[in-house]
């Protein structure tokens, strides 16, 4: 039986971005589930565990993406699920969210960070890397990207 393509959960309060991610990821064969709020995402993810999560940063609160990432990382059910944070709020007066290195990424409970607008190819490359690394370390079957 051919392995199912990886499933990616996306949380963003901007419908256009949900749609954009969906277009890009589905065009490469990923299964995509979109959520408008972190709460809805956590609920949906509990029913079907995704292989990777992409989250926006500034949603109902300034740092909603960070607390969402923390919740994902600390939840036993989502152990090992990589988290990508993507935001248009890269750096602004008083706030600088851009990670300087691995330690910053770890501090924000993220495996990768992208500034919006996201370069689709760069995002796809990162997803490929994170999903295959996970697949290699967990079950060794080395799921291939998409279908």
């Amino acid at each position, binding site marked *: 039986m051919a392995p199912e393509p990886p499933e990616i959960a996306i949380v963003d*309060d*901007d*419908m*256009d*971005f949900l*749609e*954009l991610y969906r*277009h*890009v990821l589905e*065009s490469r064969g990923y299964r995509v589930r979109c959520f*408008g*709020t972190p709460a*809805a995402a956590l609920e949906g993810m509990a029913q079907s565990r995704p292989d990777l999560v992409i989250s926006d940063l*500034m*949603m*109902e609160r*300034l740092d909603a993406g960070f607390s969402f990432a923390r919740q994902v990382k600390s939840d036993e059910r989502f152990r090992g699920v990589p988290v990508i944070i993507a935001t*248009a*709020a890269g750096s*602004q*007066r*008083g*706030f600088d969210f851009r990670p300087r290195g691995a330690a910053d990424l770890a501090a924000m409970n993220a495996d990768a960070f992208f500034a*919006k*607008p*996201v*370069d*689709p190819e760069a995002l796809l490359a990162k997803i490929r890397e994170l999903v295959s690394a996970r697949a290699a370390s967990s079950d060794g079957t080395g799921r291939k990207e998409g279908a």
Partner: protein
Amino acid sequence: MANEDIRILVVDDELGMREGCRKILTAEGYQVSTAADGAEGFEIFQRERNFAVALVDLKMPRIGGIELIHRIRELDDTIIMFVITAHAAIDTAVEATRRGAYGYIPKPFTPDELLLPLRNGLERRALAIEAQRLRREREGRLFELAFERSKSSTIISCMTDGVLVINRDKQIVLRNAALTRIMPSFAVLPLSSPIEEIQCREIIDLFEDAFSDGTTPVIASKEVALAGKTYLANASPVLEPDGKVMGAVLVLRDISELKKLETAKSMFISMVAHEVKSPLAAIESQLTMVLNGFLDNDPEKKTGAIERALLRATGLRTLVSDLLNLTAMETGHFEIKRVPLAIRSVIDEVIAANRERAEDGSVEITMSCAEDMDGVQVLADKDSMFMVFSNLLNNAIKYSPPPGHVEVVVEHDRTHVHVTVKDSGIGIAKEDQENIFDEFFRVKSAHTQRITGTGLGLTIVKRLVDMHDGAITVESALGEGSAFTVSLPITR
């Protein structure tokens, strides 16, 4: 003092004596008044007061010379009084002197015998007056000094800024009440404690900076955090007139509120940046997708992406104009011309402008207006009112899923016109209701995801209503629609 300015009172019951004195004295230029007895003399003295010299006979009817001298001396401590008498007796002279006489001139006398002691007396008087003047001046200055001192110490103790002064040896010499409030540990430190005992490194360093080592004294300034508040601390040297440093004064000003404002301001800027960058990022991504051919196999999605990009660009333009309006309101540059206005006519216009859009979204608009609204006017700026009610109507349409219904009710009581815009929409949860007028607050839920908006509409509505001395209230429950009521005072 010229003789012409010197007034002399002659009191004697003998006419010849009075006139003789007058003759001698006027020849010298003195101004002379005469009285025939003690009572008249006292009367003249009381009336005219400014006599330099009085010549007083001892034996007179009604009030005698001794009594007159006594009475005058009680009222004037610089007048020079001579006793003139033919009945010279030592004890009488002593008594007269005790009562305030300056000298004694026996009758009869030659002009010189009168004038010589008179001039001596006048000199003596001039000296006494000068001494008195100096004494008064000194007393006045002391009083002033004491007053100034208590004034400045009162001012310093009333200041809301904390003040701390140290001397050259870096000992505390002054601190005010505000300072002990800011740093309670000060209350127990006695004056002349060394500065090290305040145990606040930052403040000690500031003092060090203020003293500096060079010849040019510096004003050192720094933000200091104490007990959860932020203070701006300024230390400057206290200089002697020759420029030597004799100490330093530190002023602590509470800038916590300013800091809060600063934080709120940068928060706002961050939010604006986010609100602007998000649609831009979306537009860029949508266009990139189209250009990179991600949607080439699905023409419908391709068109959809371009349409969404256009929609976001339009939204961005609305956001910018909303922001400009809001900024203008905040800086007082948003001009409104308030004229008597029948609110009904504005509502009609707003409904007409929105009807087509509402019908496209299958939302029906109805309006009901109290029958006695004719002639009821508010003092309002027409453009502002249009902005207020089109924002409200727009929201009502946007948040009402089809088939929807929006009802506008115009009514009034004795003092106010009330316009209610009521929709059959998704409603607003209780906990969100207090935030809906905040900048950039938008209710985020599955129902609102597809609805675009700047998050500034209701903020602008509220500002405009406030500018018109009105009020806006909201009644709503999730799933049961919302009703926004604007109340504006009626003008007569």
